[in-house]
């Protein structure tokens, strides 16, 4: 058990350090601008690290390494999908988002439409995505702590909830950003070190590594299998969800408001793409390394569905010290992401729902901050409850689900809002609602819930991943509903929006919020 003590020590060091950051951040958090957007003072490079940190969650690190360790090539299908969404964000979304909004993506969707209905719909879209993502992360965290430290699952969830809420409540976006940055550096550093150690055992030639893997486990590990996609349409659907879901994740989109202008927003995505791409290349090596040096049997034997592949590899390469470090970092990863998710959920509740909708945009700074903090507490409690209720659920699947929902309910509306002149309020609202409800319903009627969970014979909806239908459907619904009843004010405001999205200048008569 001594190896676990090192992990616990590392873990506490990290917690104390991040609480220190939170204290520092708390003293700087005086306004809503600080709380939601770190005062707009984060540079492109820093934000790139923070974005990468947010993205390199437990699902990426543990999940993909595990997937590659057990199945080989298949893991690359997820890796590529999760990476290619970033260029899309860069080309189409980052700059308009930064120029048009203030704290949330709802700011952009509602820009030239009627605020009330659109904000409420966007809040629903945000919360559905945030809550499903939270389930995946919280369950992952609880399982990991239980596996590593032997704590009771519920106790583990409570600890995660408590620490995470401290970051958010007191430090807001400043704290969560810096925690992400530090975590990203630690994670990348640790992973690079492990990759070097793995390759050193194979003469620094990856070919030798792959050859050994094929020798031990058969050629099948070097080509796509049928484990994660059950057919052509499923593959296409999954690809769509992974690629476009990124652009629909509220906590990622929110990070674009922490930089001062569009140029920095652009640089953020460039750096994020570099770090994340590098990370996926490394996890591919680590997965194979684990397959060869640790072995599939050991990995499966320890439980957790393959999630322990990377930490076990660390133990193999660097003994208890490296093992402890990697476990602590993996855990910190989850903490940081959960904090970011809670913050974006809180932003939806307070900025979009309370301030903009209920109070019509009129609320003092103090009140806004107070409401933001209360919302954070509510979200935090929800996160803990969900983590407890969903114990034992497959984490990677939950995350895939989240991406499907994000790709279907948030992404289409955002795209239509930025690029299509004839979008109407009804169109935006129906698109979001269709996307959210449609995805959840089709998932329930699909193989994973209807057959595996509820034990029926045949799934009513054949695909594991409904994105192909729900994302396309959300676009179609948004377009058709808008065309049915045009909205002059929205079409007329399009040019003004274009000016602001392109140049960052405000040219409308009414004072901006």
């Amino acid at each position, binding site marked *: 058990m001594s190896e676990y003590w090192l992990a616990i020590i590392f873990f506490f060091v990290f917690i104390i350090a991040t609480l220190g950051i939170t204290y520092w951040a708390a003293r700087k958090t005086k306004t809503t601008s600080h709380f939601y957007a770190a005062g707009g003072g984060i540079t492109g490079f820093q934000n790139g690290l923070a974005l990468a940190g947010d993205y390199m969650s437990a699902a990426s690190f543990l999940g993909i390494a595990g997937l590659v360790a057990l199945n080989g*090539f298949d893991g690359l299908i997820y890796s*590529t999908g999760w990476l290619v969404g970033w260029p899309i964000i860069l080309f189409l979304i980052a700059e308009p988002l930064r120029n048009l909004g203030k704290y949330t993506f709802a700011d952009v969707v509602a820009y030239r439409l009627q605020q009330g209905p659109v904000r409420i719909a966007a809040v629903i879209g945000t919360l559905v995505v945030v809550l499903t993502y939270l389930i995946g992360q919280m369950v992952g965290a609880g399982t990991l702590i239980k596996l590593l430290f032997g704590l009771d699952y519920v106790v583990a969830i409570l600890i995660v909830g408590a620490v995470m809420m401290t970051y958010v409540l007191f430090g807001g976006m400043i704290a969560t950003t810096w925690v992400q940055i530090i975590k990203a550096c630690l994670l990348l550093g640790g992973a690079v070190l492990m990759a070097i150690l793995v390759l050193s055992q194979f003469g620094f030639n990856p070919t030798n590594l792959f050859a050994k893997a094929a020798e031990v486990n058969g050629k099948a590990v070097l080509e796509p299998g049928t484990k994660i996609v059950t057919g052509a349409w499923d593959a296409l659907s999954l690809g769509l969800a992974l690629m476009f879901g990124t652009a629909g994740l509220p906590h990622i989109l929110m990070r674009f408001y922490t930089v001062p202008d569009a140029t920095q927003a652009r640089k953020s995505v460039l750096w994020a793409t570099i770090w994340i791409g590098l990370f996926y290349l490394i996890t591919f090596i680590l997965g194979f390394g684990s397959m060869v040096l640790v072995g599939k049997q050991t990995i499966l034997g320890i439980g957790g569905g393959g999630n322990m592949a990377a930490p076990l590899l660390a133990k193999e390469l660097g003994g208890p010290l490296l093992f402890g470090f990697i476990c602590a970092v993996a855990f910190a990863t989850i903490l940081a992401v959960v904090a970011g998710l809670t913050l974006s959920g809180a932003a939806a509740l307070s900025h979009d729902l309370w301030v903009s909708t209920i109070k019509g945009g009129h609320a003092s700074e103090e009140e806004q901050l107070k409401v933001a903090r209360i919302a954070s507490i509510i979200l935090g409690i929800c996160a803990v409850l969900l983590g407890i209720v969903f114990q034992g659920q497959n984490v990677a699947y939950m995350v895939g689900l989240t991406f499907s929902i994000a790709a279907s309910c948030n992404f289409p509306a955002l795209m239509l809002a930025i690029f299509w002149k004839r979008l109407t309020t009804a169109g935006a609202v129906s698109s979001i609602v269709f996307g959210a409800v449609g995805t959840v319903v089709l998932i329930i009627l699909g193989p994973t819930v209807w057959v595996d969970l509820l034990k029926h014979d045949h799934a009513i909806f054949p695909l594991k991943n409904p994105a192909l239908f729900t994302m396309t459907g959300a676009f179609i619904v948004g377009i058709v509903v808008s065309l049915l009843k045009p909205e002059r004010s929205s079409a007329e405001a399009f040019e003004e929006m274009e000016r602001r999205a*392109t140049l960052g200048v405000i040219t409308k008569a009414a004072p901006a919020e």
Partner: protein
Amino acid sequence: MNANASLVEAIEGDPRFRELVTKRTRLAWTLTGAMLVIYFGFIAIVAFAPEWLGIFISGAITLGIPIGLAVIAAAFVLTGLYVYRANSEFDRLTRDILEGIK
């Protein structure tokens, strides 16, 4: 109100504004198209002809590995292309337009 109307006129009247919008839109959609073709081309092979990816090309490397890595590399390259053009040409245009309307 008056100051605003003239601001709008100044921007819309500046041919460089239209130039910026057109160029940026064209680059954005071209690169998006490229990324889509590359990525979904890869997915299509995985979906419809996974055996191709299992063909050995040299030693222990199957075709799938360089192709998968090429998709990742493409993401870097396309991103870099956009940022390069945007940070030089588009930012310069934006600055010029904003100077012009002062």
